[in-house]
């Protein structure tokens, strides 16, 4: 994969930031000269053999370098893996995502896997920091709080009508000391698809894999029989098949329960997830949120004690599955979009739908490149039945609060009709609700959920769409169209920020109408000539719109030429993507520079005696300075991560 200048620079900077400049040197050499055998690599990188051996081994461990041993000459070739290098920046997002979905311990496991590159399960078992649920330090803190809340969770659980263990709170202290449920956590991660089995093909570049698969396909006896057009077709298909088989390390099969990954169902049914709606929390007490985490962890351990204590195969080697994580991050992005212009409850229903779809979506799209505008057909995700969403959605979620009353006679709506800004009134009714868990309630919930999703189906975003079948309504999401929408929104945001709202209007007109000459453009956009020309000129300078000349005669005189303005989203997208890479690498360089300015000070804070006891060894001024530096670095890294969101929109979704 060839990369543009800035993308390559960015990857090298990221590697340097995380692993030091030896890795960065090897990586840039490989990027510059593409694939190289060891002696050549040594020559170009000007490193010693030992440095190269050690560096390459460690980089292969982290998947930063592909290697391929040719059968013909026996040489091993090395090549850079820019994708893995780029995803280093996304590690924060990935860990955060896992934390918010599967809890703190799962995030820790994920981080360890990221830290180790790829790792066999038997090694994970031996690691001391994965052995216990709570990290050592905050242990005391948690213990202190525990007794006060002991009564609350029990009430909560029994009310929810779930068969969670009754003695929830009592166990809490032991749980912290108890061996952590590593295997069930790994199973949860695997069934979500966040981690996959490592295969040999993961260490070879995609091109090598393709060539090998192609060779294997053409050697098959049934292919050799074919001729002409059928041969090429069949060959292509078989190659794809072999390729998929070789690279697919999916572990989720066999770990799903009723189409749901492990570790999810309980969490939602318990109502203690972070998704519990506001009024639910206020109904009980304020400290509830604090408890939620501990409760989740209980679930985990219980999982292991109960029906599910078959450990995973210890020799299984795991790595992180970036493709699937992209799907999850994309869905998070859509949920944010829904949150922007719909009620929180609607967004939550939507999130549930997307979650369901995510479990069966392996990657964001099938093609490796984003297809050109207009050449991309819509592909819908698999349709999800409403009843599944009903069963998934948090049972405490107030669905009717933000909708108009559907039927004034219905009792349940009257009860929950208002959003209780002040609690108390509502609290009593809530308990009654739980008791009568009738079929009727389910039906009305299904109706409400359909209403919410219909709301999202409307313009401008068309976040979902429905299919009406004989057995009810199913919901699906047209991801390709939505991804395109995201790209356009991002471009429009940029244009509005840089050139103002007039420019945005012009851009939208051009996008809707295609190529237009100035006069026509002015008529449609209802702008004075002067403004229009200024905007167009500045936008052209920025590369957002372009001008096409259509001469009327062979002389190409300007007076006899038609000038057409147009906006080409593909081109703009790719140039914006490059700009984004550039901005990211500049920001990273800025961090490096700022760090260099404070090098002496930062060296001091990194001294082995100071580190960890900053309060003890640093003066007040120094502590403040350290805090200031950390804040600044956080802002800069935050900017990089925002830019990464843009890259995701333009490249990955």
């Amino acid at each position: 994969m060839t990369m543009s200048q800035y993308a390559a620079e960015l990857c090298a900077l990221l590697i340097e930031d995380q692993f030091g400049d030896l890795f960065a040197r090897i990586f840039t050499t490989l990027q510059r000269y593409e694939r190289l055998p060891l002696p050549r690599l040594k020559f170009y990188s000007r490193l010693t053999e030992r440095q190269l051996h050690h560096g390459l081994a460690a980089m292969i461990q982290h998947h930063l370098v592909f290697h391929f041993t040719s059968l013909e000459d026996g040489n091993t070739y090395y090549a850079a893996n820019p994708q893995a290098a780029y995803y280093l920046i996304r590690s924060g997002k990935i860990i955060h995502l896992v934390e918010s979905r599967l809890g703190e311990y799962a995030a820790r496991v994920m981080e360890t896997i990221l830290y180790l590159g790829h790792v066999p399960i038997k090694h994970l078992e031996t690691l001391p920091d994965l052995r216990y649920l709570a990290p050592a330090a905050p242990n005391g803190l948690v213990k202190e709080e525990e007794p006060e809340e002991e009564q609350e969770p029990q009430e909560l659980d029994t009310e929810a009508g779930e068969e969670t263990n009754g003695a929830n709170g009592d166990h809490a202290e032991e749980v912290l000391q108890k061996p952590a449920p590593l295997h069930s956590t790994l199973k949860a991660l695997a069934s979500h698809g966040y981690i996959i089995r490592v295969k040999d093909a993961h260490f070879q570049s995609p091109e090598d894999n393709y060539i090998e698969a192609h060779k294997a396909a053409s050697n098959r006896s049934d292919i050799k029989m074919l001729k002409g057009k059928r041969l090429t077709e069949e060959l292509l298909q078989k190659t794809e098949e072999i390729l998929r088989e070789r690279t697919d390390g999916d572990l989720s099969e066999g770990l799903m329960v009723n189409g749901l990954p492990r570790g999810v169902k309980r969490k939602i049914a318990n109502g203690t997830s972070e998704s519990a709606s506001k009024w639910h929390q206020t109904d009980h007490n304020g400290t509830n949120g604090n408890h939620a985490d501990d409760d989740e962890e209980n679930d985990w351990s219980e999982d292991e004690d109960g029906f599910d204590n078959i450990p995973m195969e210890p020799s299984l080697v795991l790595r992180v599955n970036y493709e699937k994580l992209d799907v999850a991050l994309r869905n998070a992005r859509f949920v944010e979009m829904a949150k922007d212009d719909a009620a929180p409850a609607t967004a939550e229903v939507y999130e549930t739908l997307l979650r369901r779809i995510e479990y069966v979506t392996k990657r964001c799209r099938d093609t490796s490149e984003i297809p050109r505008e207009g050449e991309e057909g819509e592909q819908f995700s698999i349709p999800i039945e409403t009843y599944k969403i009903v069963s998934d959605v948090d049972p405490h979620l107030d669905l009717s609060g933000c909708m108009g009353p559907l039927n004034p006679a219905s009792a349940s709506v009257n009860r929950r009709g208002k959003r209780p800004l002040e609690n108390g009134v509502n609290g009593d009714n809530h308990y009654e609700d739980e008791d009568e868990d009738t079929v009727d309630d389910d039906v009305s919930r299904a109706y409400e959920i359909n209403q919410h999703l219909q709301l999202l189906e409307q313009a401008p975003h068309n976040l979902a769409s429905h299919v009406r079948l004989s057995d009810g309504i199913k919901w699906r999401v047209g991801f390709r169209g939505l991804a395109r929408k995201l790209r356009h929104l991002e471009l429009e945001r940029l244009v509005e920020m840089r050139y103002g709202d007039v420019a945005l209007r012009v851009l939208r007109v051009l996008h809707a109408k295609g190529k237009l000459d100035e006069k026509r453009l002015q008529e449609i956009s209802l702008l004075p000539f002067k403004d229009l020309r200024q905007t167009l000129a500045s936008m052209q300078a920025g590369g957002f719109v372009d001008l096409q000349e259509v001469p009327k005669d062979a002389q190409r005189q300007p007076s006899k030429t038609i000038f057409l303005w147009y906006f080409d989203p593909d081109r703009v997208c790719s140039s914006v993507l490059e700009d984004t890479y550039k901005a990211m690498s500049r920001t990273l360089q800025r961090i490096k520079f700022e760090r260099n300015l404070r090098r002496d000070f930062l060296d001091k804070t990194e001294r082995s005696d100071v580190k960890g006891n900053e309060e003890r060894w640093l003066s007040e001024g120094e502590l403040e300075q350290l805090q200031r530096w950390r804040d600044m670095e956080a802002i800069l890294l935050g900017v990089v991560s925002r830019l990464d969101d843009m890259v995701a929109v333009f490249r990955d979704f």
Partner: protein
Amino acid sequence: MSRFGAKKGNRAPGAEFTWDADPGGVPDTAPTPLYPAYVVPWARKLSEKEQSEVNHYRHLRERFHEGPYYSVLDTSSSSAKKGSAARANFDPFHGMPSYSGRYQKKRRTLPKIANIGREYETRYFPRELWPTIMPNFRPNASIDGFHAQTALAGMKRGFEDDEDEEDDTAKRRTAGADEDEGEGDADEGELLEGDEEAEEEIVDDDFEDDEDDMGGDYNAEQYFDGGDDEFGDDGFGDGGGGGDEDTY
């Protein structure tokens, strides 16, 4: 600019440059505005989610930095071999070893691969790296043949490095036993350990390499101690060191 313009006003040309207008005042040395006013955009404050993402990122990065793989190219110190690049870049103001330097963070120049309590899945690595990831790996006959093929480009270098590697692995094995015993030692032990390692690596750094890169150039360092160098004779015999021969 033009004097004609100045005549219309009541000021002499160049009057704006005199200091008489404001006796005793400080001349305004601020740069004249060359560019239109530019609004510097401010980054939004980080949201809670972003803050947590950044923290996770930094935490992972910290682990990488503390981990065995983080390695830099030049840790210049005065203990570096004379004439090596590391010695040339030595910073005499901050680089002198001092007592407090004991606690200074040590940077490796070479990722530590073996003996870090991590097992490698050997099948995922190319064969030529096997000696690196497995310290007690004995290359057998078939692999020797394999090496001979890859080392065609620089016969001399490849040969030497094999020896190097073996030496190294032997050393490591003995050191490995020590390490295993003293794994749970205090920080102090580890510090020293790291120190030794760093030194060893620096010693091995890039002197030979330079020589290799420069091919047959005259090498001042080698002028005097060229004779008692272990690879002096047969090393230069086969072509590479032809230039050196001339200087004698």
